[in-house]
């Protein structure tokens, strides 16, 4: 059953991705993006990663859909995407190259649910056995996230901070600057 659900969800994902490419209404595009992340989150559930599914659902379906819709509400014109009908070669080549690299990279990843793979056999055991003495953090999850993968987490935090600042700059109302001058000066 898990295989069937996987296949159907992946097929829906493919349809959705093609539809996002084809559609011209930005509103429909935003809604389809919401559906897309909902499907991805469903796939994460089937892959037995509920924490990732939580994050994906909250960020992808919730916040980013709302943000896209708010952006759409803020722009006056251009609720339709315009394309010129010309296909550019260089982005296509870059995309295919990157996709090929990613697919090539998957050959090194352990099989899903393989109990003999290195992450399941050695890495987790080492975290559990030596995590406390090596890092001195009582919580094991915190030890992995903040100590073993510290640079990873730092990068993520930087990305989130930058994105937050960007959104705030985009959404923040430009207030008029009032300079009150008291007295005889002719202020602006």
């Amino acid at each position, binding site marked *: *059953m*898990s295989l*069937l*659900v996987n296949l*159907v969800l992946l097929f*829906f994902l493919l*349809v*959705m991705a093609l*539809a996002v490419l084809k*559609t*011209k*209404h930005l*509103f*429909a595009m*935003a*809604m*389809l993006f*919401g*559906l897309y992340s*909902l*499907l991805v*989150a*469903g796939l994460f*559930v*089937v892959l*037995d990663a*509920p924490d990732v*599914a*939580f994050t994906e*659902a*909250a960020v992808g*379906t*919730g916040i980013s*859909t*709302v943000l896209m*819709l*708010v952006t*759409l*509400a*803020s*722009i*006056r*014109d251009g*609720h339709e995407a315009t394309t010129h009908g010309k296909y550019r070669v260089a982005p296509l080549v870059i995309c295919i190259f990157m996709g090929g690299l990613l697919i090539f990279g998957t050959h090194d990843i352990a099989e899903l649910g393989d109990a003999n793979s290195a992450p399941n056999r050695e890495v987790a055991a080492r975290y559990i056995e030596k995590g406390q003495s090596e890092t001195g953090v009582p919580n094991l999850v915190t030890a992995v996230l903040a100590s073993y993968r510290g640079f990873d987490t730092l990068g993520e935090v930087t990305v989130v901070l930058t994105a937050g600042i960007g959104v705030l700059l985009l959404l923040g109302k430009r207030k008029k600057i009032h300079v009150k001058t008291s007295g005889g000066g002719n202020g602006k």
Partner: protein
Amino acid sequence: MTLYFLIAAIAIMFTMALALCRALLGPSVFDRILAVNMFGTKAVLLVAIFAFFSGRHDLLDIALLYSLLNFVGVIAALRLVERGKFFANNKGHSVKMEDE
């Protein structure tokens, strides 16, 4: 018991496919919003069925989260349609938004 879960899952996925068709084809914007809402509801049901099928009842929390987010998303979309009259260009474009 697995057979029942399988039948229910297939039925739900079929409904998802129908809702997806409506979301892609849907002539008016309200069709799309309704289809997205329905798709989200079916995703909640699918996750719930999968939770009972795999015996991990904590996955039900995710189903609850989905329904909550689905609600928020639909409300946001409807707000946009409502305010679109004032924000979009003057042709009442975002209210009708027919496919060409």
